[in-house]
């Protein structure tokens, strides 16, 4: 167990209306076994004792699955490690004396609420637009009524592993939400149960995504690199194809 000292430059912003800026703090005697969020906890305890307001940051499960946490560390969403959420990033990945610039996700689609906390309700609206199979409770046939190819089921799972953290948007040079949207489109359309509504779904979801004022995809694949669940951009290609076909084949 070793200890390191760090300089933190943290984005502080009182709320969505006021302007924000960087504040510098020192994090002393940070145990390298700590997670990044535990390091922030320690800094926050220290700030509280100094009579300052602690840094607001979203977090919940702290085991990489709820999708609540996330910040950009030195320009990288969720920090330097691949396939990792901020809560699973440990301080042994940083060097003694390092300066860390900590910023919120930055996108017009994710307005800042306070400090590192952003409003990701746009993602909920994209799902609400069509990210489901419209089956009501009680309508389902027996689970074995329709076999599903294992390969399709596995691919569907790969896409369904999305935790909705928003790192794809944060990392995209254009703040585009294509990977998030495509993951849901592709998850459902890979399953026979999801194919009935697939054309309507992709159209509605893409249109809602556009309404939320995210940027456009320019195939730079930074989303895939930042995704803590390493969801492939192949799902984006699939959505592009589904959208094109749905639009051109529609009868009216």
């Amino acid at each position, binding site marked *: *167990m070793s200890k390191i000292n760090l300089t933190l430059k943290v984005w502080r912003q009182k*709320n969505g209306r006021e302007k924000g800026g960087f504040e510098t703090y020192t994090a002393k005697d940070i*145990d*390298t*076994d*700590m997670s990044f*969020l*535990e390091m922030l*906890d*320690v800094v926050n305890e220290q*700030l*509280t*004792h100094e009579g*300052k*307001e*602690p840094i*607001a940051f*979203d977090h*919940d*499960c*702290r*085991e990489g*699955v*709820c*999708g609540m946490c996330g910040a950009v560390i030195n320009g990288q969403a969720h920090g330097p490690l691949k396939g*990792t959420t901020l809560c*699973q990033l*440990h301080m042994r990945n940083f060097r003694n004396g390092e300066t860390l610039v900590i910023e919120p996700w930055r996108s017009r689609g994710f307005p800042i609420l*306070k400090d590192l906390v952003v*409003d*990701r*309700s746009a*993602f*909920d609206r994209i*799902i*609400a*637009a069509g990210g*489901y*199979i*419209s*089956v009501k*409770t*009680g309508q*389902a046939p*027996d*689970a*074995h009524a329709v*076999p*599903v*190819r*294992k390969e399709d*089921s596995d691919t*569907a*799972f790969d896409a*369904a*592993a999305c935790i*909705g953290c928003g790192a794809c948007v944060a990392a995209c040079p254009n703040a585009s939400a294509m990977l998030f949207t495509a993951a849901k489109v592709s*998850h459902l359309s890979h*399953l026979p*149960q999801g194919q009935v509504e697939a054309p309507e779904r992709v159209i509605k979801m893409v249109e809602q995504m556009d309404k939320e004022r995210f940027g456009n995809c320019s195939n730079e694949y930074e989303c895939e690199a930042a995704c803590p669940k390493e969801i492939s951009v192949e799902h984006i290609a699939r959505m592009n194809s589904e959208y094109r076909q749905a639009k051109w084949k529609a009868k009216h």
Partner: protein
Amino acid sequence: MPELNAKIPSGPLKDKWTQHKAHIKLVNPANKHKYNIIVVGTGLAGGSAAATLAELGYNVQVFCFQDSPRRAHSIAAQGGINASKNYPNDGDSIYRLFYDTIKGGDFRSREANVYRLAEVSGNIIDQCVAQGVPFAREYAGYLDNRSFGGAQVSRTFYARGQTGQQLLLGAYSALMKEVNKGSVKMFPRTEMLELVVVDGVARGIVTRNLVTGDIETHAADAVVLATGGYANVFHLSTNAKGANVTAIWRAHKKGAFMANPCYTQIHPTCIPVHGDYQSKLTLMSESLRNDGRVWVPKKPQDKRNPRDIPEEERDYYLERKYPSFGNLVPRDLASRNAKEVCDEGRGVGPTGQAVYLDFADALKRSGKAVLAERYGNLFDMYEKITGSNPYDEPMMIYPAAHYTMGGLWVDYNLMSNLPGLFVIGEANFSDHGANRLGASALMQGLADGYFILPYTIGDYLAGVKAGKATTDIPEFKEAEKYAKEKINRLLTIRGKRTVDEFHRELGLLMWNQCGMARDEKGLKEALSRIFEIRNEFWQNVDVPGSGTDLNQSLERAGRVADFLEFAETMVYDALHRKESCGGHFREEFQTPEGEALRNDNHFCYVAAWEFNGVGKEPVLHKEPLDFEEVHLAQRNYK
């Protein structure tokens, strides 16, 4: 002391639910939209209930403290969900699932509820598959099953190690479908602070908008709490940081009974605590015990590298004590034994609060490739967190608080003793008795939400005049005022200690005195310490910031304040239950071999506590447990 009436339908066990459904009152489809239902919490229970109620036509308002309903802590469940489908053709049935659950719960649950749970378990799988939940499949395209603790059949459906996530996303998508239709109004980043009770009937809630700080009131014809468990009373647990007791505790303070709060589940395989700063404990799936061997050195304080300790100086204590189940004994036994060896000074690691889970033999036997296929993702996760590679050195594990079987008391219709207040999922005192089996929490949450509450709530609403819900009555104003005053009080103390410091202190106390093993002396000590900590909290806590914007310290302060009150009730319950059962182990009550010793003559009941003022002993109400179908026996896993 009046006995509680659980309103269990009459008739043979296997017909009760069918008969009940056939005879309960219904709400006319044309009238359903006139009823307002509030659902608090969006985990498996709350999400599924809200979606289903909206599909039926009710007007539903849904609240969650997270930024999206998709983040509720059900999402973190790893292993799977049980259902008595009998797809593997290994002799499973509704009755077997029912019996295993009753036995696993150490005969402290309601037969009728558990049977109903087993009965609807199959429908859950059908529903989830139809929603697009990508369960694991075999090459033929059909669903795969695996076995889990406490059962001799393979009835667990799973989606890699993220079953909870996939089921929750299914419920969430159903919920968002209704949001889109306008039948559900969603209030994310909103925390319930008060339950409003009018003439003994639940009529609404008071909430705080966590972004603006606005205190708001919401009226309804029925209030459904699906706010999860209270394992964070221990501060360190496998629960999400935000998981709290606030909603059910504040309902309890308004008259809802708290049942069996001392039944808490400690999961045996978690990554041990490694420092004072630790914020949470990470669970490593129970499945690791299939191939890992649990051991500690025979000598106390043996600080040698594990690989330097020769075979004959190791104590594989589970294999020694339970030769037939070995490393696969139920959770409560595995946990308690780990504590025992650590208490003897034989624990390992820097804190001495850990035991080894060693894969060396399995590696020799099956090879690295096989282990990587079975546990690769878990090993990676372990290495990510601890920086140690389980292929090279044994894992270190220690038990951690994981799930709480206790909760608000509900009758067969899932309604609390307050008319109009329904409680589902982990928030109610549940169908798990004194101990929950693996892969049963997901089953119960979804059973309650999809297939039970949507029927039973109609029975209540049919007797309520629609459209009467209004916040324009003094009870709402009072509750709102009370909530505001409490927040102001917290913000004006400006003491010297942070909220987390109090939470840590309470958690450690509860863990030591009311955790894996309890005794009268320790519990009594805990009572006086809780009182002291709570008093200091209200004089010396420092909650920075204001109440009119996003203030996470304030949110935590409110929750910790409630834990500080709730903890007392939990200890009272543990103190009064002079027996050992499931997750409640009283050291005074054990067999000569050190196993839990139940006292069926005196304690075969649900203990439902009525609030009697902060710091005062709550009033005990009993619901006797009648076992018609199963024979009470001592659990034996030797």
